[in-house]
Structure formats: structure tokens, C-alpha cells
């Protein structure tokens, strides 16, 4: 952990240095809420998927980050993964949100694990595996987490293409018994 606290621009610069071309885009958002208008800082980085480990290592060098979650989005031709990190926690108003975005093309849904650097990422990575159908390389535990073992293979709930949820799998709870109920009411009248 470094004692001197970097400005958001310096953080981006450090990533620029270690990733080179791998850093595809960066954006710093400052938003404020409440009366005192304290600004909260969000750093959004878009990187190449092969550089994910270097990026996380870089983040660890700045301060061991808190990983909130890995979220994802099916963008049609590829799946976008977002790693939501936070650094400089424990200091009043000092925290930066660092979101690392990377796109996996649907033809090549493989990404390196970051569990060797951050063991707590395991839950999130297992979840992404079962919900997006991607493959995390070297994951220490690749069992299903939330879905049961007999969930059909090749169906990934968060995908928006043909591997997503099909309409016939959806149960409409609010329709159950409605017609019979109406008949009962009519009879009582």
C-alpha cells in the first residue's frame, strides 16, 4: 500500500503505463449529492481482456482493492464484463470507484481468473460462468453456485440470444387458478 494518495488522473496514468495499448478507454466521473456537495469519484476503464490480470495486479499495488461484484451484460456480439473495484476505503470521502470493463467476443468466451489475487472473487466468477456460459480459466472451484445441478446445459439466463431463457420456460404465477376462481364466483352469484 502506498502512503501517498493518488489523484484519479494519476490512477488512470498508472494504468496507461502498465497496460499500454491494452487500455482502450478511460473516463472519470465526479458526482455529488447532499448539501455539502462532496464529490464522489468514479473511474471507468475499458481494457483488453488479456490484460485483466495485469490490471488487477496494478490495482493491488495501489491499494488492496475491495471487489464489490463482477457484473456483465450481453451486448449482442459480445459479453461485456465489469469488475467493480473500490480503493482508498476507510478514509472519509476518500474512496474511488474503479470499474474495469472488458469485452469477450461470443466466439471466445474465456477469461482468466482473478481469484489468485482476490480469493473473494470466487462467488462472482462462479456466478458469471453459470449465467453467461463463459469459461473462467484456472478457477479453483467450477461447480454451479446458484443454479441446481439438473438445470439444462446450454441455457444461460442472462444471455439475450438463443441460449437465453425461452418463453415456454416461464411460469406465469398470477394466472394460476384465475379461471377456476371466476367460475366459483359466478356459481356463488
Amino acid at each position: 500500500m502506498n502512503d501517498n494518495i493518488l489523484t484519479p488522473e494519476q490512477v488512470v496514468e498508472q494504468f496507461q503505463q502498465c497496460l499500454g495499448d491494452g487500455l482502450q478507454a478511460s473516463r472519470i466521473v465526479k458526482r455529488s449529492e447532499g448539501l455539502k456537495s462532496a464529490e464522489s469519484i468514479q473511474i471507468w476503464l475499458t481494457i483488453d481482456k488479456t490484460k485483466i490480470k495485469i490490471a488487477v495486479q496494478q490495482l493491488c499495488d495501489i491499494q488492496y482493492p475491495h471487489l464489490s461484484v463482477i457484473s456483465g451484460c450481453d451486448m449482442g456480439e459480445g459479453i461485456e464484463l465489469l469488475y467493480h473495484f473500490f480503493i482508498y476505503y476507510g478514509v472519509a470521502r476518500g474512496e474511488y470507484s474503479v470499474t474495469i470493463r472488458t469485452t469477450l467476443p461470443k466466439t471466445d468466451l474465456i477469461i482468466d481468473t482473478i481469484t489468485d489475487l482476490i480469493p473473494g472473487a470466487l462467488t462472482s466468477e462462479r456466478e458469471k460462468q453459470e449465467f453467461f456460459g463463459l469459461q473462467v480459466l484456472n478457477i479453483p472451484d467450477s461447480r454451479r453456485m446458484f443454479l441446481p445441478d439438473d438445470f439444462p446445459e446450454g441455457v444461460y439466463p442472462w444471455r439475450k440470444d438463443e441460449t437465453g431463457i425461452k418463453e415456454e420456460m416461464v411460469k406465469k404465477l398470477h394466472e394460476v387458478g384465475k379461471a377456476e376462481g371466476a367460475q366459483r364466483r359466478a356459481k356463488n352469484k
Partner: protein
Amino acid sequence: MKESVVSAKKPIKTVIGPIHPALKEPIKFIFEIDGEKVIKVDLAPGHNHRGLEWMATRRNAVQTLYVSERICGICSISHSIAYCRAIEQAADIEVPVRADYLRTIFAEMERIHSHLLWAGVAALELGFDTLFYKAWEVREDLMDLLEYLTGNRVNYGVLQIGGVRRDITPDQHARINKSLLNYTILFDELYDMFLEDTVLRMRCRDTGVLTPEDALKLCTVGPVIRASGIATDVRQDFPYCAYGDLDIKAITPEALAGEVHGDVFDRIIVRLLEVKQSIEIIQQSMKKMPIGPLTNFPKLMVLLNHIKQAEGEGIGRHEAPRGEVFHYIRLAANQESPLVWKVKASTYSNAMSWVKMLEGEQIADIPIIVASVDPCISCTDRVAMVDKGRTSIFTQDDLRRLSRKKTERIRQGLK
């Protein structure tokens, strides 16, 4: 004789859950047990999946707001605050200052009720019914206050994207102040009952220890990581709503005992001190709250159209009673429902720390250790969806038919 069989080399496997009196919610633990000692722990969540994140992609933002409230009935405000903030950021909606303060007040009230609830449940796990009743008596008073202010005891429904739905009128102040004063007294009593009781201390000290290093590595949040001595709190680190004005300090057990064990007892201390802190926050916000509108979008349909047009992404965080909740939302133009909604509940982050806490402990301590995290399985499990293979559907239908028949038979018998 039987005992020696059990404590022989091969440990027995015990499954706790998904339905177990100690767990108010369904989650499954698979333990390997040697005598009374836990050797290995495996976690099988997922019994509570309702597929909320998928539902949101088929509904509009206002409908999803109420679903977000029902991710968890205890953190009902927490999730909707995080959800609203995410969507406000994505659609660039300004929130009036008064609404920010009101959100803060409701959120802190929820923290008090949640911590008291937890204290009661912890006492129940320890087989201490009287303390459970006592803690819930105090809580019941708060539930009355929340019902008075919001119209419901659990799912308050006071939040709206871009503001709040209900105001705290000046004539309600007297009642709130009276109740808050009452809590300060009752709190001292509870404090005495929890922290001075020798038996309770015997059970909780050095039980379920989590070191700060492990806490960081496993991404734990909320009272769990604070009890391990790391002073992180979203309200302090990344202020939002009115918290920026209120100078919040994260609470660690050092504040009371001067030392950190990272055990169950420390988690009790942190939560009890947070109740006191929350009372102070509410009192402060009541004083500082400015006059102003409740929302910038009084017409709901205008709001819905605004969200439909908007494009962008946003993250919303909130320090829920159990720790950080995190919502990520991406909106696409000309689409009523969000493209993606990702929810991260506090227990989702804390679940992995269970394994570390439970290993090497005794069976008797399982419930209190599990409860010490203040688990909220419905939060964690909200995502996945389950479908059964075709063959088993038939057998289940058969089962159901059989059970119906049986009930009919009994009813006949009753007559």
C-alpha cells in the same frame, strides 16, 4: 459405544438446511463433522432464486422499484436506495435535497430495526428467549414508528426514482423525537443485557474468528469487516444522500473494548454501537433537513418517459445494515426496461467468510456464527433461475396428486 463409532477416523457428513429452525431462510450447508467439531464446510445457496434480475428486463423502472424493495424484506429501503441511485445516475436525474435527507432518515431507521432484529435472532440462536423477546419489544416500538411514517411495517414503499413519495410533516416530529428519546434509554438497557451477561460472553468470545487479512481477501462488507478491525463504511468513504453532511465515522470494536478479536462478540458490539450512531444521525438530519420539494418528477408518466429516452449506466451503493449493497444498471434508449440490472447484496460478499469462520468450531456454535453475519439469503439468491428436467416433473406431479388425494382422505375422515 455409539460415540466411538462416530468419532472414528471417518467424519460424518451432516447437511443443515435448507429448512432448519436456526435459519429463517433457505440455504444449505454441508458439514463434515468429527464428534462435535466442524472439519469442512461447503455452501450450497440458490434455494431462494427468484430470477429478479431477469424479471427487471421485462418490466419498467417503476415496477422494478417495488421488486427491488422485495429483494429482501429487511433491507427493503437499502436495496431501493441503491437501485434509485443507480438509475438516477444512468438517466441523469437530480434528487431534491429534502428527499436526500428523508432517504437518510428512513435508511437509518431501517438500520436500527434490522440491528435489533439481528440482536434478537442471535439471542434466539443462543437459546435465550427472554433476551430475544426483550430486543423485539424495543424493535416493535420502532416498527410502529415506521408504520406511522410510511404506512407499512416492512416494505415501506416511500422511495421513488428522483425523490421520495412521503414527507415527514412537522406534526410528526414530536412523535419521532419522543420515540428516539425512548430508544436511547432502552438502548442502554439492551447494551447492559448483551454485553454484561457472562453466559453470553462465554458463548460469543473467540467464536467464529475472522482475521482482518481474511476479511479483506474475501471481500467481506459491513459489520463483519468492521468487527475485524477495518474501518470501512460506505457512508463514510463514499458519501451519498445526506451522509456527506453528517460526518459519519465507521465503528470498530476498538471504540468500546480497545482491542479487536474479530469474533462474534465483536460483531455484537459493532451492531449495538451502530444503533446508537443511527439514533444520532436521525436526530441530526431532523434538525438539518431543509424545506423543499420531494421529487422533481411529480408525474410518474413523465418520469417513465424520461427513463425510456435515457441512455447510460450507473452504479448505486448503500451501506445497508448488513453491509454494502451494490446495484449496476444500464439503460438503453427507447426501451422501457433496463438492459441489465445487477444486484449485489451484502450477504453475497459475506458468504465466503462463513467457511473461514466455521472451520474448527463446534456444532453448537454453527447457528450463532451463521447468524453473526446477519445473513440475508433472499438478497443473495435473488438471481438465478431453476428448471427441472422433464422426467422429474412427472414424478413431482404424481407426488402432488398423491398428496392432494391424501388430504382429501383426511378431510373426509375429519367429517
